Every structure is written in structure tokens, then in C-alpha cells.
């Protein structure tokens, strides 16, 4: 029984990092309708920034974290201004933007490998302090992962519902054709959305770099998992991405419970497929439809 509980706990801690990425991915996807695979490149960019600031420049966390978040937000803005906006202006559709995004992710991975090598770069070595809850163990960082994910999400929800810019983002997500009619500057809002999404990815990057270090390809799998989490949660509803990420993290762990771990990937994605076949709109998709209606 303790084995099962530990697997669930592992899943929740992994899910916290997926959640930060998934919420960032979802806000970009909902507002811009870009399947933003380059979100993985932003994560890795932020991780290398954090590594350079801490391990090379010797900055403390209090300085390094906000600088990393700012640099990642700027990187996201540049992706919008340098890639998505020009393609949109030339009439590129969703598929074209997605391919461009994938291409940019691959390009970045190669550039990172050339600059930093393919080795894992770390800012600390060894294990972390652990807390024991009976037979269960959890580290301080993993508790921090979950707390940060929830706080960041609540702050984002407050921003989206209570600020003028947040309401503009929601309006754009709800109806991109009507938004300009009511005075929302679409291009500027797209840039803002990319900055917010990228800032969220940078928080995940900081936590991952502190835990496991940074390497050029680290963004690919996580952005893939985030997209799956968004599908589980339901497109268009931000809390869905959060719940989907935690659910996916737990599912990955439980897939090994009574089975050979060789089946982990297969069982996880078979379960996701079955779920989506039964509920294609995701966990909260129906609520979105009601709200939109």
C-alpha cells in the first residue's frame, strides 16, 4: 500500500512541473491558437540562463530567478515577433505555425548543443533533504514544486480575471474575430501572452535545473507531456491544464504499479487514448462549452 501511495506522491511532484509547463502552453494555445511546441525551447533557454546566472555569474537565487523569468519572457516575445507574427501576416494557418514552432524547437536544441555541449550541466550535486511521512518520502524541492505551481496558477487566474490585460487575453481566446472590434490590440496581446507563457515555462525550468540540471533536449519531452496534459484537462479551460498535468504525472507512475516498467510508456498513452476516446473534450471541456454558450 505504501508503494502505491509513494507512486501517487511521485506523480504529483512530477505533475507540478508538468503543470507549470502545461498552463503556459495552454494560455498560448487558447489565445493565439498556435500549437506552441517551441515552448520546449523556451524552457531550455530559461534553464541555460538560470545555469549561467547561478553557476557561472555566481548570482544568488533571489536575483537569478527574476532575471531568468524576465529573459524567458523576452525570448517568448521574440518568438512571437520574429516567427509567428510574420508567418501569420503571410497567411500561415495553424499547421504552418505548428511546423514552424517544431522547426524552431529543433533548431534551438542544435544551437544549445553547439554552445553548451550535450552534457548535463548542473548547479548542485547529490541528493536533496528528504521528509518522511511514515513510509513515504518527499524532498523539499518537490514540496516547493507543488506549492509554486499552485501559487503561480492562482496568481495567473487573478491576473486573467481581474486585470484589463487579462480580460483582453480571455476575450481574444474566446473570439479572436470579435476582439479587435471591442478595441483589443490583437498583435500586442499575442506578444503579452507569449511573455506570460514563457515566464511560466521559466519557473518550471528553474525547478528542473535545480533538481536534475540542464541539457539541450530537456524541453522536448516536457512540452509533449504538457500538450497531453492540456488535452486531458480540456482545451480552452486553464484549470483543466493544471488538473490534467497532475493527472498525467500520477498516471505515468501508476502505469508501472502492477506491471513491468517496460510497459510504462505504452500503458500511459493507451490510458490517455482510451480516456480521450470516451471524453474527447477532456475533463473540463464540457464546462468550457457551457461557458462559451
Amino acid at each position: 500500500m505504501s508503494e502505491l501511495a509513494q507512486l501517487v506522491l511521485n506523480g504529483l511532484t512530477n505533475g507540478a512541473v508538468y503543470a507549470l509547463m502545461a498552463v503556459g502552453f495552454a494560455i498560448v494555445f487558447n489565445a493565439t491558437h498556435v500549437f506552441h511546441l517551441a515552448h520546449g525551447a523556451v524552457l531550455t533557454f530559461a534553464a541555460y540562463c538560470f545555469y549561467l546566472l547561478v553557476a557561472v555569474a555566481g548570482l544568488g537565487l533571489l536575483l537569478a530567478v527574476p532575471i531568468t523569468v524576465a529573459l524567458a519572457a523576452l525570448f517568448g516575445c521574440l518568438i512571437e515577433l520574429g516567427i509567428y507574427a510574420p508567418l501569420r501576416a503571410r497567411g500561415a494557418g495553424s499547421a504552418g505555425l505548428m511546423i514552424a514552432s517544431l522547426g524552431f524547437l529543433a533548431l534551438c536544441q542544435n544551437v544549445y548543443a553547439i554552445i553548451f555541449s550535450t552534457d548535463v550541466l548542473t548547479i548542485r550535486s547529490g541528493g536533496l533533504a528528504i521528509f518522511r511521512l511514515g513510509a513515504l518520502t518527499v524532498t523539499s524541492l518537490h514540496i516547493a514544486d507543488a506549492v509554486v505551481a499552485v501559487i503561480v496558477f492562482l496568481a495567473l487566474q487573478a491576473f486573467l480575471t481581474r486585470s484589463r490585460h487579462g480580460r483582453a487575453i480571455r476575450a481574444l481566446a474566446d473570439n479572436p474575430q470579435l476582439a479587435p472590434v471591442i478595441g483589443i490590440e490583437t498583435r500586442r496581446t499575442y506578444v503579452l501572452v507569449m511573455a506570460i507563457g514563457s515566464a511560466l515555462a521559466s519557473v518550471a525550468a528553474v525547478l528542473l535545473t535545480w533538481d536534475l540540471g540542464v541539457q539541450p533536449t530537456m524541453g522536448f519531452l516536457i512540452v509533449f507531456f504538457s500538450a497531453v496534459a492540456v488535452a486531458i484537462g480540456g482545451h480552452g479551460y486553464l484549470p483543466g491544464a493544471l488538473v490534467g498535468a497532475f493527472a498525467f504525472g500520477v498516471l505515468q507512475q501508476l502505469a508501472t504499479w502492477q506491471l513491468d516498467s517496460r510497459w510504462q510508456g505504452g500503458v500511459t498513452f493507451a490510458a490517455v487514448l482510451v480516456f480521450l476516446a470516451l471524453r474527447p473534450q477532456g475533463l473540463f471541456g464540457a464546462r468550457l462549452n457551457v461557458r462559451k454558450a
Partner: protein
Amino acid sequence: MKKTRLWFGIAIGALLALGSRHPAWAQQKGEIKIGLSQIASGVAADYWARQVNKPALLAIDDANEKGGVNGRKVVGILEDNQGSATTGAAVAHKLIEIDKVSMIFVAPTPAVLATLPIAESAHVPVISTSISPKVSASPWGALAQPPADRQGLAYAKFVIEHKFQRVADLTGQSDSDTIASKAFHDAVSKAGIKVVDTETYEVNAQDFTAQLTKIRAANPDCLLIQSLSGATYGFVLKQMAQLGFRPPTILTYYQIADPQTRKLAGDLVDGIYFIEIPVDPEWNARVFRPRMGYDADGNGALAYDAIALYLDAYATAGSDDPQKVRAAMLNYKGYKGAVGAWGYNGQPVTQVQYRVARMKPGGGTEIVP
């Protein structure tokens, strides 16, 4: 215009077909070309550069410094196979059909297995530091590294000698690791030792918490972890510590000694046992470290030796006929190189044996008697 293009295409095709009827070696003039189909990009690229590609090219440089092979210059042609079968096959075609290499030195296993049939039909020898027994089963293949089953038996020998009772293993989902794992299981089970858990992971995985949670519950007194990546060992050890457990004894492969592992895991690597190919310390100090700036591990030493032994044998074969060169290599005696004195003893598998070593606290390794 279309007709002209068609005839032009047919003519080129006919020329290529005629050209391919001649074996690669028959078209060589002067230079001896060695194809290196190896990883040069992706997550393993830096390790591969340090411990496979550079040592292999160093062996070619050393041969040329000694005057080449019977006065002929040796040229190494390095191509990136990306560790995959698809790219490995494309690289093999390029090295054989365009570069006309005399031999292909190739790893890892997926690229080797894709190279073998192409090399067999072109009669080009293939030498590999892979551990797949399929290489030595090929009439044109030779393994410079002990095969996977021998690796599994080396692990088992350690476990049996130390009288462990409950062993578990964590193994990559590759053919070679599976073969090594099976040989290990068979041998320890035969000795009456209980295998309490077997877990596997995808080759580029970073999260091992699910597998380690199950191993923790199984409570082994010895855990075998198989990986070719220092980073993988680092992640596993960190996550094991985060789950608050550590089996009394951990046994691994020699990539645990890669500097990456200690960078990631710190002193968690201390006291871990591993099997390794013995590198000659005198060769490392005299030949390798002064020019490379770091130490060779077993892979690096065998990569050097695989090329150097082949070139020494080439010089004695008295022919460019690849079959004769390969036969000379398999029966070559008196070679002494990076892993000391060794040879193939007539078999397409190296006779080099593993030994057991341990990570010393604070850094370095020590041989376990």
C-alpha cells in the same frame, strides 16, 4: 527533353551498377580509408566524442606518425550515424559506395545492425565496440568489446562471489541490455540467488522514480544498474536518495566513472562497484592523457585498440583483400595497446576480460581484488 533526361538517368544507373560490381578495396589507390560510423550529435555526442571518436582518430594519427601501413597513409572518415538504424544504414552506403572504405568501425548497436547487411554484401569488414552478439555472428563482423552475455556473466560472478541473496536490476530497454540482463538472471538463479525485482527504463529517460519505488519495496541486498550513460547513473542515484533508500551494494557498468556522474550525484557515487575493461595506466599516461587532456575509459581504450590492431594486422596481411585482412586481424598475435596485450585468438570476439572496480570516496576508482 524528357527522353534525354531518361537516357541520361539510365546511363548513370548503368555506370553505378558496373562500378558496384568491383569490391571497394579493388578501387583503392595509396590511401587506406577507415570509416567511422559513430554518434556525433544528440545527447550522447560529447561522451562519444571523448571516448570513441577521438580515441579512434588518435589511433589513425599514431599509425600515420609511424609511417602509415606499409608506407600508405591512413585516412579516417567520421560520419554521424545519430545512433540510429536509419542513419546508420545511410552512412554505411556512403562510406562503402562513395568513400570506398576498407573497414567500418561502428557503434552503437542499432547502427551496427543496420550496417552489417550492407557491409556483408560489399565484403567490407565491420568492427564494433557494441556488445551485440549479432555482430560476431556475421561473417564480416568482429566485436572489440566483450559481448552482452559475457557482461551479464561478469555481473553474476560478482554477485555469486559476494554471496548476495536478494538481487534486483534496473536495465535499459535495449537489445544488448536485455541479453546481459538475461545472462545475469540465468546465472544467479542457477546459483540459488533470488531476483526480487527487475525494472527497465527507456534509454533517454530522466525520471526513474517509479522503478526505484518498486525496487525499494523489494528490498534487495544488491542492485545492478545497467547504463551506458554517466548522466543516467547520476539521475538514478539522486532519485534513489530522494526516495530515502540505498541498497547495501550497487553494481554498475564502467560509465559510472564518467565525470558526469559525480557532477550530478556528488558523493552518492562513493563505494559503488562496477565492472570495467582494464585500461593500461602506462598507455593512458604516455599516449592518451598528454594529447587528450583526460583519461580514457574502457570504451576509449577499446576504440583505440580496435583501429590500431586492425591496422597492424593490415600491414601483415600482404594484401588489400578484406577477407585476408580480416583473417590477419583475427589471428594477429603480439598486439599490445590501450588495454594491454590482447587479440581475437581466431574468434570474431575480443578476448579481453572484465574486472571489478569501485568508486573511491572523494573521487577516483580502485580495483577490487
